């Protein structure tokens, strides 16, 4: 047997074997008492498995994970015990994590034989290099000794694009729990934080978007509609339903179908990061102006998505923004950004130049300004005509 070669080479002499058996008996006696320290359980093993000298995995010994190796020589390759035997809770939460969905196994991040309590951020940086680089230069990294795992639980992590504002804020609130008091300068801080995350302001280089989604109204507030409820409500998976073309209209139509079946369904929205930059230490005091967000200049107006829950992950569907302008009239009750739905000079010029009239949905709430503007303009013109006629007849 090929694998038996090295073992045979170091096969113990009879007297030594007796000693080993004695040691093994002693070890097996102590194991249930939890006294099987790494060294204690490995002494014999390390004579053959020299590569594992210095190995450490908490208080476990070799045989805790390789019980089939108690007899020497072993037969064939010994399969280790699965990690969940000891780490049941962690493995259970990991099963639903984004890392698991990406196909990562325990050993991709953990060297089980040389497990160290604190491995710093190197493990994460192996895959998330650019995030680690940005974070390393940030105030968080410089002022504290923060590790990636201080904010992120790698065993339960979910893709940030699937997180709502509350879940995103909770990441920061672990340390900055008094964030509402710190933002007392902001009108209605609790209301704002229902629609924003910390990084909306504290990470200028992160890309932000207005993200729309289906939600259900309940006494506890609005809750995002999960995939299974969406499928139950629609009757089938609506994935692929939204195609090229006027997606805003298609989503509006889908909403109307769903809203007929569930009166508590609304389209809700939030302003969140859709491409993060791991510098969250910025404190742009000069941006503490309402118009930083509540004006047409706010950058996130240029990036809007509808998040459709999917079987595996949520689908981000890019929007033109007319969903914001028209459909939430009966859907979104609180999300309200000034200026976007206001008439612009260009709209008036387009009208005067007889450019093709856009549909009511393209105009959205602008029709109010549109009619208001022309009402006053026509009134002014009529008055001017009246004045001219009065002067002409000298009355």
């Amino acid at each position, binding site marked *: 047997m090929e694998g038996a070669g090295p073992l045979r080479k170091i096969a113990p002499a009879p007297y030594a074997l007796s000693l080993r058996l004695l040691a093994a008996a002693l070890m097996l006696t102590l194991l249930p008492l939890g006294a099987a320290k790494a060294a204690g359980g490995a002494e014999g093993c390390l004579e053959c498995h020299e590569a594992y000298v210095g190995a450490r995995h908490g208080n476990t010994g070799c045989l805790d994970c390789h019980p089939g190796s108690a007899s020497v020589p072993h037969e064939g390759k010994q399969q280790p015990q699965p990690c969940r035997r000891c780490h049941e809770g962690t493995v259970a939460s990991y099963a639903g994590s984004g890392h698991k969905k990406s196909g990562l196994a325990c050993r991709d991040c953990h060297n089980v034989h040389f497990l160290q309590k604190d491995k710093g951020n190197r493990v994460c940086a192996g895959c998330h290099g650019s995030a680690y680089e940005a974070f390393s230069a940030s105030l968080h990294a410089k002022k504290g000794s923060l590790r990636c795992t201080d904010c992120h639980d790698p065993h339960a992590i979910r893709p940030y694009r699937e997180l709502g504002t509350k879940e995103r804020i909770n990441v920061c609130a672990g340390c900055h729990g008094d964030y509402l008091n710190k933002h007392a300068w902001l009108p209605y801080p609790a209301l704002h934080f229902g629609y924003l995350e910390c990084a909306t302001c504290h990470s200028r280089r992160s890309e932000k978007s207005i993200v729309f989604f289906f939600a259900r109204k309940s006494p506890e507030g609005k809750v995002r509609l999960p995939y299974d409820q969406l499928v139950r409500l629609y009757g089938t998976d609506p994935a692929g339903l939204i195609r090229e073309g006027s997606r805003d209209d298609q989503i509006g139509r889908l909403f109307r179908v769903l809203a007929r079946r569930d009166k508590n369904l609304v389209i809700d929205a939030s302003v969140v990061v859709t491409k993060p930059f791991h510098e969250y230490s910025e404190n742009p005091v000069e941006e503490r102006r*309402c118009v930083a967000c509540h004006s047409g200049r706010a950058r996130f107006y240029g990036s809007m998505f509808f998040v459709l829950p999917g079987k595996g992950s949520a689908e981000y569907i890019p929007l033109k923004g007319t969903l914001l302008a028209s459909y939430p009239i009966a859907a979104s009750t609180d999300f309200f950004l000034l200026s976007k*739905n206001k008439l612009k000079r260009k709209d008036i010029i387009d009208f005067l130049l007889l450019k093709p009239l856009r549909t009511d949905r393209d105009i959205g709430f602008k029709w109010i300004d549109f009619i208001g503007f022309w009402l006053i303009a026509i009134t002014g013109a009529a008055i001017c005509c009246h004045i001219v006629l009065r002067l002409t007849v000298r009355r």
Partner: protein
Amino acid sequence: MKPLHPLWLRIWHWANTVIIVLLIVTGLELGFTDLHIFPFQKAVLIHKVLGFAMIAGFLFWLVAAVLDGSLARCYGVRRRDLSGLARQARYYALGTFKGETDPFPTTAGEKFNPLKKLAYISIQLVFTPVVIVTGVLFSDILLFRQAIGFIGGLRVLDAVHVIAAYVFADFIVIHAYMATTGKTPLSRIREMFTGI
């Protein structure tokens, strides 16, 4: 001689004029934030304070108009008002240029011709209450959250408030011009200062 416009009405009229003009200007800043007429935060504060001043003024007008009987006298709709709408419109469109006499001349007892009455009823008894109620709801959106949700949310509230504001703006333009159509261009404006 009994004044055409009592003192309380003249004081309220000019105070209300200033308030409404400033409300429209600050409201423009709130709606069209790129205009930069005022700093946004100041515009919010001024708009809110003036809004409550307008409410106080409206309540003052309502009580005074009820007490001196002018609400029933001037705002009460009669059958002849309805039939007179077309005559008054014809007068403004044609008669005024031909030197015809006003079919409904202004007197202390009958201040409003049918068209004016329609305009004033719309403004004072419809659009002012609408703009006041929506403005009060806007003044504390957390306190009035349930009521706002009931009428369809902030966007609907904003739409109703803004529609009422456009009507006010249009009314002011027409009202200011109509004030110049007296015996002389300034005679009606003078009346609103002196009362006679």
